[in-house]
């Protein structure tokens, strides 16, 4: 393939300069087009994503879903978007105008900025930062801020309660997520997203880091505020949560943010644990890599949609206990085991050389790490079993004690 065809945006500046533009103008136009493309893509995609989500949820619940506007109801969400834009824009009288209006913009920004470091293909990435993964973690923490600002500025008790839950949930689940992400970083020896994908050409990280992949998936579900962790907008308790006072397109922005965030979280799962764009022929034809990435993302995304439509919402104290008493300790033990095993395989000389793309060279290390992961899962299940058994016995002893106290009263009849 011609060099110029692989990434037209990379070669645009050179074309413009040869056409007579100044170097500054050429690079400005090049960067502007890149930024517009990368930020427009998820915004257009989200319209389709809402359709996919509604269809999947409908199928799970034995309904048809949207099927009136356009073929298969595909245009339903375009109609919805037009309706949202045309709706009256209300700012509540007691609201803090500036923060109230800034919150939806920051919410959307916090997701769009993540797309800057997503490696779409070997040749297409917004910016391959040397700290790409850390950038993703830092930017996602800004989303929390937007929801808090919305909750406070609305001057509504339900919105404020929703915002309180956000802090509890998002800040807590960030801890296991970041610890789980350390293991792919240990294996790849880099924080750059493109290098993390390249390190997986031989072996996807889901094999040697099975436990951290599961932890990352669960904590990502919580970070995006989706079922079963959708407590921030629990309709039955909080009416609508932090965005209760928002209407029209401002509400639309929060909704777009939620759907984009869910997709982005699954996209990052595919990038970090399922090899991103890697696949046969991806190096020669970068666009094929993009197709692989979208296919992998689609699989995890559909899985999360089915999960959303089937599981009930967890209670807030259960959710916090699950995070702090289960996910955080497990992720720390997992990190210690993985670091030890990686060091052992390196000392034994069976670890693959950095940049090794051969599948067989990765097998010994991945096998040892997978064994470590399976041992950890076995240990967790055993510990859960014995603690459940203890609770059950204690419960039995208590109810049995109650029965003996009740029986004399009942025996009088």
């Amino acid at each position, binding site marked *: 393939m011609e060099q110029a065809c692989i990434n037209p945006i990379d070669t645009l500046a050179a074309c413009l300069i040869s056409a007579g533009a100044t170097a500054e103008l050429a690079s400005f136009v090049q960067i502007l087009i890149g930024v517009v493309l990368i930020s427009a893509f998820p915004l257009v995609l989200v319209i389709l994503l809402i359709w996919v989500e509604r269809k999947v949820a409908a199928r799970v619940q034995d309904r048809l879903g949207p099927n009136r506007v356009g073929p298969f109801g595909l245009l339903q969400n375009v109609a919805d978007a037009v309706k949202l834009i045309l709706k009256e824009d209300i700012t509540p009288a007691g609201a803090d105008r500036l923060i109230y209006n800034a919150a939806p913009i920051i919410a959307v920004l916090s997701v769009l900025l993540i797309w800057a470091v997503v490696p779409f293909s070997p040749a297409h990435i917004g910016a391959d930062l*040397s700290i790409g993964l850390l950038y993703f973690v830092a930017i996602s923490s800004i989303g*929390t*801020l937007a929801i808090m*600002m919305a909750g406070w500025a609305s001057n509504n008790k339900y919105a*404020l309660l929703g915002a309180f839950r956000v802090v509890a949930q998002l800040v807590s689940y960030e801890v296991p997520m970041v610890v789980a992400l350390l293991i792919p970083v240990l294996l790849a020896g880099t924080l750059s997203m493109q290098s993390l994908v390249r390190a997986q050409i031989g072996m996807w990280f889901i094999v040697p880091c099975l436990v951290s992949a599961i932890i990352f998936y669960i904590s990502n579900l919580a970070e995006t505020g989706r079922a079963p962790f959708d407590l921030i907008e629990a309709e039955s308790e909080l009416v609508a949560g932090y965005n209760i006072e928002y209407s029209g397109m401002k509400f639309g922005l929060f909704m777009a943010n939620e759907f984009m965030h869910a997709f982005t979280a699954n996209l990052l799962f595919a990038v970090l644990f399922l090899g991103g764009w890697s696949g046969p022929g991806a190096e020669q034809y970068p666009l094929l890599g993009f197709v692989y990435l979208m296919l992998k993302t689609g699989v995890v995304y559909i899985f999360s949609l089915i999960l959303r439509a089937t599981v009930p919402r967890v209670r807030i104290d259960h959710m916090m206990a699950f995070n702090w008493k289960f996910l955080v300790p497990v992720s720390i033990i997992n990190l210690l085991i993985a670091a030890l095993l990686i060091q052992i395989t390196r000392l034994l000389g069976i670890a693959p050389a950095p940049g090794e793309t051969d599948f067989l060279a990765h097998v010994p290390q991945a096998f040892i790490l997978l064994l470590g992961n399976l041992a950890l899962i076995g240990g967790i299940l055993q510990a859960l079993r014995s603690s459940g058994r203890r609770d059950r016995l204690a419960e039995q002893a208590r109810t049995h004690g109650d029965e003996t106290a009740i029986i004399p009263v009942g025996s009088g009849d």
Partner: protein
Amino acid sequence: MLELNATTLAFFVFAILSVGGALGVVTSRNLIHGAVYLIISLFGGAGFFILLSAPFLAAVQVLVYIGAIAILIIFAVMLTRSMTNMAEVVNRQWWLSALVGALLLLMLAVGVIFPVWGDGGLLPNQPVSDQVATTDELGTAFVGGEDYVLPFEVASLLLTGAMIGAIVLARDTEA
């Protein structure tokens, strides 16, 4: 003389963000607004780290200061609604803080600006150091034996101590 290019422009944008944000923190009467201004100021600081070729510190600044500390401040303010609309801008200790602020500025001028830009100092267009450290080197320096392993461990102990202290304070007495 400063030449006008993208870097200078970015420097001034970040300078306005951080100084303007800091001014907003001390002048706004609404504590939530103050916290939002603080976030803007910290964001400007993160921009400076990027201009100084320290992207790791920039990301950590956003993650720790904006993502954790500023959010905790807002959370604390939210729980105390009566503090969100204060009548006066300054309290009785304003002269003390002004004195401390002036002293810090003086220290900055004597300690940093004079050695670099004063007589016999480095030229303005000469970098203070020509080393651009990567995240790898930063990590090695933290735990690599002779460099900064002791301060790093002491800081970790301090944080652990603070965490245990917070748990002890928040715990019910009978438990």
